[in-house]
């Protein structure tokens, strides 16, 4: 008689690897064979995980079609069995898996689309935090501005993309014909976040994209202004004009609920 642990080991190896050792420990009868009985669990295992991935990566599925997507999901399930208590996290490695999958090495836009899908999920249930409003700018003493560091809302995610994935994403959501993948003129940055309870996204302006990562990583306001001034589009601008552009960007971020704190500590 097998121990409980041995039963679970053999059962799991059947579900994950197709191992058949467990078969001889399942009661069979004339109505339904032990093979059919086990198949119910095998089917449920893969169906449940594919369903979770199809919800989390709905854009990728829309592009690939259900059949191809399911086949890729099976590869993922085989290589990345869930170690998570909740299905919420099962897709964590899926974007990287798509990136490295031999079928998609020539289609890097699929990775970008998967990243976008996953960031929407992460922004959706990121930690709650009160955001500041533009009126808080009045309270900052003029002499403090150079040392100000911005703290961003936990739901703020962003990534650089090189393909027309925003166009593709819109086509999918609007149920229009999905455009062919194309490289865009220059890499751009997509920002995804949650404002109140609603998930938002937009493409950053070019100069905004150049300083956004620094801002999130805690650069001072002065260093952000300095970096802006070095950009081609601002190279010939007066310092006042750079300061105004920086302030305008900060006001936008505050209006969008991206900022939770203006840290004045030097």
């Amino acid at each position, binding site marked *: 008689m097998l121990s409980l642990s041995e039963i679970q080991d053999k059962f799991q190896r059947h579900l994950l690897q197709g191992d058949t050792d467990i078969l001889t420990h399942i009661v069979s009868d004339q109505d339904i064979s032990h093979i059919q009985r086990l198949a119910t669990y095998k089917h449920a295992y893969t169906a449940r995980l594919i369903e979770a991935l199809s919800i989390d990566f709905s854009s990728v599925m829309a592009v690939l079609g259900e059949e191809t997507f399911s086949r890729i999901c099976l590869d993922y399930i085989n290589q990345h069995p869930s170690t998570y208590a909740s299905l919420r996290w099962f897709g964590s490695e899926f974007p990287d898996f798509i990136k490295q999958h031999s079928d998609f090495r020539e289609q890097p836009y699929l990775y970008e689309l998967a990243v976008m899908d996953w960031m929407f999920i992460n922004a959706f249930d990121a930690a709650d935090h009160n955001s500041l409003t533009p009126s808080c700018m009045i309270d900052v003493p003029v002499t403090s501005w150079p040392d100000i560091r911005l703290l961003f809302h936990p*739901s703020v995610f962003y990534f650089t993309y090189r393909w027309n994935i925003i166009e593709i994403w819109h086509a999918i959501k609007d149920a229009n014909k999905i455009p062919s993948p194309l490289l865009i003129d220059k890499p751009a940055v997509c920002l995804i976040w949650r404002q109140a309870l609603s998930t938002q996204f937009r493409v950053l302006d070019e100069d905004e994209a150049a300083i956004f990562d620094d801002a999130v990583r805690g650069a001072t306001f002065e260093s952000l202004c300095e970096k802006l001034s070095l950009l081609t589009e601002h190279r010939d601008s007066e310092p006042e004009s750079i300061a105004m552009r920086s302030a305008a960007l900060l006001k936008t971020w505050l209006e969008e609920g991206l900022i939770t704190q203006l840290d004045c500590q030097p």
Partner: protein
Amino acid sequence: MPIKNHAEYPYLGYGLGLRSEYYDTILEQRPDIDWFEITSENYMVSGGKSLDYLDRIREHYPVVMHGVSLSIGGTDPLDKTYLKQLRDLADRVKPVWLSDHLCWTIHAGKNIHDLLPLPYNSTTIDHLVNRIRQVQDYLGRQILLENVSSYLTYKESQISEWEFFSTVTEKADCMMLLDINNVYVSAVNHHFDPADYLHGVPQERVQQIHLAGHTDYGGFIVDTHDHPVVDSVWTLYQLALELYGPVSTMIERDDNFPPFQELLDELDHARQIGQVVHGRKTCSA
């Protein structure tokens, strides 16, 4: 009629599984539902819409928590991270009670995300009792465990499922969440009389009842929770109420979501059976 006297847990009446598809309808219409059951793992997140809706719904309805990843029958050590998340969520939600399933879901660190059957024998009973006590000690409360639908029997099983279930709950001093649909599904799949099951469990342990639909493949039933409750399950439900007295009852729907009114109608049907059996309206929260 048996009289229940649970000092710790009240009788809640007639409830529904809380699903995101119905959040707005519930808040807008405040339907005549006595309580809701949440799937614990769906709310083990840092923030956002789900927790916000739950907080608002909790203002108007009692809530119980129902987990799927405790893996109480597993042989890996109990997952302390998961248990802490569960306790943290319970601190926030303040559920009337908390339940999971009499099954295993995780082995060697890998989660199958399914409610897998256990062999029904004394070794498994001892294993479960030890782990249930650990969980109850950690959470500081009695838990409920639910019978799962099963599609196979191990040759290592030596007693009936209801004898196994009863012994585990008695020895571990936990409560039963009796899923009447699961009893029916397993009865058809394993060729036993579901009435024997209902007669075979201790009435004083039955704290909650689940009712749900399934998919019948002709002599073999899969517990899909995507159809209305069938007549055979309603009949068994009536027998359960006759045997156990009033038990907090809910409809569990997890897929193929109908208009909300259809679930309310199903719940009303359960209420009517309760009134027929007990001769009075049993609860309004």
